[in-house]
């Protein structure tokens, strides 16, 4: 027996015939059963993409928050003030040093003070 003959033999078997009433009633029988079920909500594009988008959005939000958070702003201001203060202090130190070495200047200062 070759494949062609086998297929012919297999196809010679027809499924059992059912009455027209059966075919007419079957869909409504199924429909009656549907009341017990709820169809699943349509699915959206793949979960992988959703996850990637959510991750990117969360990361962007974190970066924005970190950049513009009030504490961050105050911290930057303090750092700036601190740097300025140290620069002024350094200038004052060096000025004082020069002033101490310059006797004329010291004299001037003492005169001014009096």
């Amino acid at each position, binding site marked *: 027996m070759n494949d062609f003959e086998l*297929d012919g033999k297999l196809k010679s*078997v027809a*499924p*059992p015939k059912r009455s027209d009433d059966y075919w007419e009633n079957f*869909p409504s029988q199924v*429909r009656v059963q549907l009341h017990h079920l709820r169809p*699943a909500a349509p699915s959206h594009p793949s979960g992988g993409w959703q996850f990637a988008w959510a991750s990117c959005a969360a990361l962007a939000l974190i970066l924005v928050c970190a950049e513009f958070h009030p504490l961050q702003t105050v911290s930057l201001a303090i750092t700036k003030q601190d740097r300025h203060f140290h620069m002024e202090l350094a200038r004052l130190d060096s000025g004082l040093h020069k002033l101490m070495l310059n006797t004329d200047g010291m004299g001037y200062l003492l005169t001014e003070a009096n």
Partner: protein
Amino acid sequence: MADADADLVLQCQKGSPAAFEELVRQHQSMVHSLTFRMTGSVADAEDLAQETFLRAYAQIGTFRGNAKFSTWLYRIAVNTCLNWRASEARRFHLQANCAGEIRAQYLNGENASDENQSSQQVQAVLMKLPAKQRAAIVLTVYDGLNHAEAAQVLGCSETTVSWRVFAARRKLKRWLTAEGGAR
């Protein structure tokens, strides 16, 4: 997906049971044929056809139209049949009984026509096949799917389908030749 099916599926996804009833009407014959060839029993085939459509309705939201609706429905029907009576041992026992019963009727000539007897003989040997090989034969021979389409329905590779069809054909030829000789 055929346009008519696409519209009906869309309506189903929006919750229209009437649209689903129309889909059932259009595909009921195909599903009944498949479940009958998978089970060899008219009563079980009807139950499984109904279960197939109920599962399809419950999962209609997951259908995205990447494949034809009929292919998607085939897949549900085949899986429903493969899961039919979860206990493998029980299934094997029942199928063996069913096949034996049909073959005995055939050999005793209890049924009227030769055509009927031949049908029963073929159905009996079909039932002797392992379920997955039977599914491969049903899809490719009876429903005319190519191996790629059958692979999509069965959720396996095309090579696996080819192997199952090959193994099933070899067994069917041997059994049918033996039955023919015994007759």
